[in-house]
């Protein structure tokens, strides 16, 4: 599924025609939209196993899982973007995101699609002054007929920490 890696320094076929720097992202789906997170932020992608509920936790927290002896919080990706809830199924995955060296958090997504190199020139960064709606969104990439929402994991997990 891995898309072909664009050789560095070559001219990309985008309109401006200058050589592009790419961001390698893990693409996943929430509801009908495609989202992307920089691979540098991601430790691993797990199948959904047993999730232990934590009574009293905020609504977006599904529960905790045991990742090789470390207790990791699982956050509902749909909840974060105010999408309707959905039962987990065989396609559901937990994306483990590194917050810093010691802490990581799991993000429940509907489906992990692929790893893709997105040219930075395709990315429209979100204006910082747009409040509310742009929360957790770094920018939007229009690439190969896809609209990819780039998730700002730093903001997503600093607010709620």
């Amino acid at each position, binding site marked *: 599924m891995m898309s072909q890696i664009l050789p560095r320094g070559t001219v990309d076929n985008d309109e401006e025609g200058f050589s592009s720097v790419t961001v390698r992202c893990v693409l996943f789906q929430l509801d009908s939209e495609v989202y992307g997170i920089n691979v540098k932020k991601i430790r691993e992608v797990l199948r959904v196993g*047993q999730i*232990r*509920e*934590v*009574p*009293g*936790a*905020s609504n*977006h*927290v599904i529960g*905790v*899982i*045991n990742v090789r*002896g*470390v*207790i*990791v*919080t699982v*956050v509902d990706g749909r909840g974060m973007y105010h999408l309707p809830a959905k039962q987990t199924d065989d396609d559901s995955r937990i994306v483990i995101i590194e*917050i810093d060296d010691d*802490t990581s*958090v799991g993000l429940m997504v509907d489906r992990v699609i692929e790893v893709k190199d997105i040219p930075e020139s395709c990315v429209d960064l979100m204006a910082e002054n747009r409040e509310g709606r742009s929360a957790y969104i770094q920018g939007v990439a229009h690439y190969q007929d896809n609209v990819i929402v780039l998730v700002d994991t730093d903001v997503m*997990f600093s607010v*709620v*920490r």
Partner: protein
Amino acid sequence: MDEEILQDFLVEATELLDQLNEQLVDLENSPDDSNLLNTIFRGFHTVKGGAGFLGVSSLVQVCHRAENVFDKIRNQEVAYDADVADVILRAFDQISRIIGELSDGVREFDDIDPVLLDELDAIVKGEVQEAAQTSSAITVIPEVSLSLPDGVDPDGEISDDEFEALLNQRDQLLGEPSQPANEPKLQLPEGVDPDGEISDDEFEALLSQRDLLLGAEHKPQDLPQASPAVKPKPKAPIKKSAEPSVPAASKAAGESTVRVDTRHLDAIMNLVGELVLVRNRLLTLRSAEASLEDISNAVGNLDHVTTDLQASVMKTRMQPVKKVFGRFPRVVRDLARKLGKDIDLELVGEETDLDKGLVEALADPLVHLVRNSVDHGIEMPDVREDAGKSKTGRIVLAAEQEGDHILLSITDDGKGMDPDMLRRKAVEKGMMDEASANQLDDKQAFMLIMSAGFSLAKQVSDLSGRGVGMDVVKNMITKLNGSIDIDSAVGEGTRIKIRVPLTLAILPTLMVSFGHDSYAIPLTSVQEIFDYDANKTNTIDGQTMVRLRKKSLPLFFLAEWLRPGHFDDQRKGDKIVIVSIGNQRVGLVVEQVNGQEEVVIKPLGVMLQNIKGYAGATITGNGNIALILDLPGLIERFK
């Protein structure tokens, strides 16, 4: 600065400072102890040597002066009285501060308060003038470093070229000590052959001089550089803004290294060897057709080895309680002096070992309790005399191991507490009505001082008002799964006892469950378990109570809290677990009791740490996650 050397230095210096902290106070009590004097002298000397090597000139300045003072004291030219001690202790505080900052990652230091340096010099010079031979070269330092313009830091990074220049300069100075052209008047002690071997003292002096030069040389070199290269200027503000975050981060991490006896390591290695053998045994059993007996033998073996291994690894985390106690002589001394009280502090059982995490966690509550004893417990000397007691008050700080707990006690022979007065006070403060206040027995009355908003002090002094009330102390101890017990008699004194488990990492728990969800209740708070029987419950004022041996205890249905929506009315087979929370006993209704289990506490993940009621999570024998309940927090959350 070479990081590796720096780290070695920090480890050594921190240890030395810990010792010095105690020794300095000891010395005040026995000023004639020449061994002690020599040890202290060597302590400052060693720190100075390391600091000089690393080029932390401000540290060298203070240490050197302190060393000079102790040299005088050693030669009995100066007496170590309380006033000298005050200055020395202030110098010591400066040294601790710089060492602390060094380990927090700060690499640039302000100059030491010149007043302090002058006072130190005054002690040295005040008595005898001519013996200032070693210090003659050093006294130049304040002039030079003080003349540095603001913003230029003598310890800032220097370029290779600058360093070369400095080296040359130093060589020149060392080679031609009497060269008059040089601004900083460096003097080798007379009769020293520049090419001959040098003694330790001379070497020290040279080191100090070199540091002086490093400091002085920055003045001409840094200033012109500031405008074209713009290097030093932007650096200062960046450092400033970064500073507050750095100590905060490292504070949280606590001490990162531990010294371990190699015998402990050998024992662990040995056990790991055993563990490998057991593994091999199990692997062979898997492939061959093994009898059940063989397997259970191997598993039994595994059980033994892991238990021993666990104990051994725990031992490496153990540290003597001395680490906490060591700071108290100083705390008590300073406070007593400030209040004009006369107090002897006795430390008992300093060698008792406890978990490293506990050592750190206990420090703050203990400081508060000891300060309380000094401030509120011990009376003024004249009051004591009138009461027929010795003028000098006595505080005993003791630690001992009691099974799998540590018992700490703070005992003073002060004025004690009057339970009736406490009861009255509780009523005055509106914490309870008179009837319930009168029902409290003496112990419960004493515990009132641990309640939030209950201050014994008629007026808040700056000593007690450190933002840590007794209620905070109690909360901290409760968090460590410990308990507090107070005993007091009017006119005779007060004893506060703290019991904490030996270790924080492993917690004996009672496993309970609701359906598939299991929870762990810390075993220390569990008192008894019996079957739920609706006939034995009453509802009093909306609160369900359970009768237990002619007492009614409040009953909480955990399932209602933990699984709202899954509420099951059928309580057949439910159990009641009686737990003690603080001084209160309550019953918890659970669906199932699964028995005891020792669990390893793991922190709950992000976004969950602020939920009240959980102390963490753990992974049970069957691989599931169990949540560890923090009962005080849980009760609070649902009250």
